[in-house]
């Protein structure tokens, strides 16, 4: 088990190095870093000072070492817009995102698992068809538009729920639904299909031969097995979730990391964006590690390999 976690952690670090290297390379290859790092109205002296400060006059390899050294010490440059270390800005926004993401995940878990199971058990019946249609629609609807649609219906027309910013619980409803929809749809389809496979399996037959109750067969023997593909494909969903927060937080003016990403893009705040990308990678890896541990807990075959 420990070996497994250590290995996962190592893979994560490797990935982080890859991401950091690519971010560095993208900055050098596709534009002049000084132009990217300084505001447009900067004077020639400022440019010169920056070049020296960053060691940009040295060879690329040296620059890379400087960059990595800074990154390891948590220094990813200074945000142009906020005139603060970019990492600090990231952390000031992180808590707000960490409120929204789990809300969407919980929504996904509580909707997708029962619906996925139910549609597998009632394959071809009404429940299955209705939830199948919802899933197909949920996957096809881009969530920025879903967000606006929900605002139009529930804030503009009905006036039931607030349309932006944080506040009491009611502020969470629309963003959570917006962010959670694709997760719900994706999980539901996945759970349904893996549930169908599991229901067909020999060990479920054996469970029935034992004379166990249907509840026991479904909840003990099927569910855990049906969840494995969700855990396997978690990484893909995680990427979608991060993308989703950028869009969702933008739509609802939610002061989190996603909104920050958007701001960095439209204000061309390169140091900030660079920091956000790298920190997002760290965040994703941390969450994936937790999921990996959960995976190992659910599936003993993983624990021992």
């Amino acid at each position, binding site marked *: 088990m420990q070996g497994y976690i250590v290995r996962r952690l190592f893979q994560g670090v*490797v*990935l982080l190095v*890859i*991401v950091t290297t*690519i*971010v560095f390379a*993208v*900055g050098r290859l*596709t*534009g002049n870093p000084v132009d*990217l790092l300084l505001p447009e109205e900067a004077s020639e002296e400022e440019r010169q000072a920056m070049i020296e400060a960053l060691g940009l006059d040295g060879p690329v390899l040296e620059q890379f070492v400087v960059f990595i050294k800074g990154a390891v010490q948590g220094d990813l440059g200074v945000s142009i817009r906020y005139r603060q270390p970019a990492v600090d800005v990231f952390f000031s926004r992180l808590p707000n995102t960490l409120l929204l993401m789990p809300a969407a995940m919980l929504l996904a878990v509580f909707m997708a698992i029962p619906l996925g199971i139910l549609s597998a058990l009632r394959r071809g019946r009404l429940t299955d068809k209705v939830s199948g249609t919802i899933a*197909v*629609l949920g*996957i*096809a*609807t*881009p969530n*920025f*538009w879903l967000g*606006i*649609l929900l*605002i*139009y219906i529930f804030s*503009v027309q009905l006036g039931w729920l607030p349309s932006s910013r944080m506040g009491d619980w009611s502020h969470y409803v629309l963003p959570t639904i917006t962010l959670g929809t694709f997760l719900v749809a994706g999980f539901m389809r996945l759970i349904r*299909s893996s549930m169908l496979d599991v229901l067909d399996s020999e060990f479920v037959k054996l469970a029935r031969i034992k004379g166990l109750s249907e509840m026991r067969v479904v909840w003990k023997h099927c569910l855990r097995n049906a969840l494995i593909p969700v855990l396997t494909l978690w*990484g*893909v969903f*995680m*990427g*979608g979730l*991060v*993308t989703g927060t*950028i*869009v969702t937080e*933008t*739509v609802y003016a939610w002061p989190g990391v996603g909104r920050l*990403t*958007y701001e*960095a*893009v*439209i204000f*061309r705040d*390169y140091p900030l*964006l*660079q920091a*956000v*990308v790298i920190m*997002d*990678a760290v965040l*994703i*890896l941390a969450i*994936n590690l937790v999921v990996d541990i959960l995976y190992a807990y659910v599936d003993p075959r993983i624990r021992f390999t």
Partner: protein
Amino acid sequence: MFIIGGMIFAAVFAPYLTPYSPIDQTLPDKLLPPFWEAKGSMKYILGTDIFGRDVLTRLLYGARVSLIVTGLSLLFGGGVGLLIGITSGYIGGRLDSLLMRLVDAAFTFPAILFALLLAVTMGQGLDTLVIAIGLLLWAGFARIIRGEVLALKQRDFVALAKVHGCSELRIMVTHILPNVMNTFMVLVTLNVGAVIVAEASLSFLGAGIPPPTPSWGLMVAEGRGKISSAWWLSLLPGIAITLVVLTFNLFGDWLRDRLDPKLRQL
């Protein structure tokens, strides 16, 4: 099917279908609602935006942008994936494990973030967008094609070709490539929906084709601020996106089930 046809038709013939320009502003006619609303008229069937541009016209031209971007990025991203998948699967060994590590990395890390990064460093534009979305695609293509190639490698005709002294490159091109084309096509159709959404999302986030060129994502973004007074500005393009994506997804599923049922699990 009908919707896909309609979209392609709209994209190709946009200039002939509408009397208006998608870009020129007609300020006196700004913010008119669609014809079925009280103040709407048949002059602008789906209303006008804040600059008095006809929404329908912009939708039609937007289809064109979407289609071009989608086609190019699928070609680019899919092509890179195809190339990497074949080399990785056929040559195997160290190269294979290295490339697959990269694929894993690409799967873990959301490509949209890189896309945003590129938009800032390279500036907005078609090339940026195509590269960015290509980044989103290649890994998925590479992984599945590689799996196919691994299976093909075991087959007799490849061994036979080797016995006959064909060069590795020749085998890859003449024997492997045609056999993975089916899978490739299925992957392309399965991904069209995702690409359209990605393009729209990037445009929405201000990292797509720069205005005033119409694109659906951008139209949604522009209309967002006016949602309480002019709902049609952002809701209509969104409906267009959803409908098209939905159709392509259903079509992709159907094609997969017909041509390549073993891709089912994906």
